[in-house]
């Protein structure tokens, strides 16, 4: 089955208003509501014609500020594949930013356990019903979800400074400390550091 046939089959089963076509997916996909997700995913896995037995990926995205959209939703995309039928499909679900709760797929595919943890870690999407939704890649003490578009790196992350002096400043510092003259190449007028500590772009 190709993606259009899968969408037709889903629309036949759930109604055309509950399964929308993802126009922007190159290989076809559907957009569904959060409340329908668990039911539709179960159907995709258990139906004998669809038989999506491989959950390939769970990817989170932040839509805040994306051109052409005026939402600030988070989105979770599921890429599915069927080893028996050799076809693939993707399902997207949008959730509001302040309450990003999505039903967990861990009861359908065990591979979701780690992928949902990763998505929670980096984007803060909460997968309800997950057996242990903890941070995976980042340390447990880490604050915030760095793949969100409004996440800002602080001056310090877990006690480690995120900015550093320019090498020229460092050279000058050591040179001054030793009481010598600053060599002509090391004057401060070369790329004076900005407030963030990074040298400005050279035009």
């Amino acid at each position, binding site marked *: 089955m190709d993606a259009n046939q899968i969408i037709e089959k889903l629309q036949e089963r759930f109604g055309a208003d509950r399964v929308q076509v993802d126009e922007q997916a190159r290989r076809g996909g559907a957009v569904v509501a959060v409340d329908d997700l668990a039911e539709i995913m179960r159907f995709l896995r258990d139906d004998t014609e669809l038989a999506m037995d491989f959950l390939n990926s769970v990817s989170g995205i932040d839509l805040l500020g994306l051109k052409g959209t005026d939402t600030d939703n988070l989105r979770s995309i599921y*890429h599915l594949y069927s*080893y028996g039928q050799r076809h693939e499909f993707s399902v997207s679900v949008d959730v509001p930013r302040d309450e990003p709760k999505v039903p967990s797929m861990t009861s359908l595919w065990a591979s979701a356990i780690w992928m949902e943890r990763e998505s929670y870690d980096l984007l803060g999407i909460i997968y309800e019903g997950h057996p242990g939704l903890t941070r*995976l890649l980042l340390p447990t003490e880490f604050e915030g979800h760095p793949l969100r578009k409004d996440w800002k790196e602080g001056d310090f992350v877990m006690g480690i400074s995120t900015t550093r002096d320019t090498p020229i400043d460092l050279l000058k510092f050591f040179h001054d400390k030793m009481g010598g003259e600053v060599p002509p190449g090391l004057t401060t007028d070369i790329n004076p550091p900005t407030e963030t500590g990074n040298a400005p772009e050279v035009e």
Partner: protein
Amino acid sequence: MTLQNQHGEQIGSSFQLIEEGNELTLNMGPHHPSTHGVLRFILKTDGEVLRRCVPDVGFLHRAIESIGEKCTYDGFMPYTDRVDYIAAMFANHCYALAVEELLELELPRRAEYLRVISDELNRMASHLLGLGAMAMDIGAVTPFLHMLREREHINTYIEELCGQRITYNYQRIGGVSHDLPHGWRDRLLDYLDHFEKVIPELNRLVTGNQIFIERSANVGAISAQQAISYGLVGPNLRSSGVDFDLRRDRPYSAYPEFEFEVPVGRGEMGTIGDCYDRFVVRIQEMQQSISILRQALLKLPTGNHMAKMPKKIKPDAGLHAYSRIESARGEMLGWVMGSGGKNAWRVRFRTGSFNAMGIIEEISRGMMLADVIAFIASLDIIAPEIDR
């Protein structure tokens, strides 16, 4: 479970032994030699039997997906090398393919062939290291050296191709960076004749070795159902008896033009899907790689190695596409979403090692401590690919 420094300040989580009744909590890694990179496992053991093995990953997290949002499409290419530095060609290919799918680019056939050639060379190199490391983890150091010797030869060929031995940055959006050097094709064909004779030697040294068989057969068997549910991919999936290979069943690049077999685990020395099967499947895959390489080198078409590229790569906002390729560690999914500008809105890699890590906790329950080393090694896990 916290560790304090001499001033009584908390400096991190503990890495020490904790004894509760019969159960011992033991830390393995992050710098354990058999953990294939910087990986940590928290083991709960009863004597020598494991009750639980909890992987702790993220020590090599370099925020590659985040960097992908901040670079231009071409500018991100060198970073993809670092996704999996043992088999860098595949992440190159995966990302390039995803962007090409966004742009709907058609590649010259020669470029596709060069991609297949570099992929298969890299697959051989990666399997050699993975198999050698598995043999070494089990206690055989000699095969590792034999395999590294061969890997060095392959690296030299790749170095002639693109100037690098580890992080190749060879495959680009729209093709590959360089055409073949003069005389390279014939020399590689000669080398393949040599390498074909090395595999039986390795089989005599390791695969047929009774100690190796005792250590790996019937250890860590994964059923086909478990493998599919946990999303194992590539050689790990095939050794569990699932006959699936993206190169054959969902062809990409020039793979439909070659004939090759897909080795599947048969439980030769024990159960289907045990550590021994995973080892044998990889050995057989190298043989298939030789066959694909020979066909590709002999059939290599003339033409350009780069497609005609649009001046600026600017896919529409919100448009997203993904690619799936058969990497050395199994299927890799690369997913890219356009932002309408010169940077991607979101880049994602779902890698083979990441999925393989998820199954360790399930399978290792009740295993012997020494067997879990063989089990982890047989999954051919590489830490940077998990953490990205």
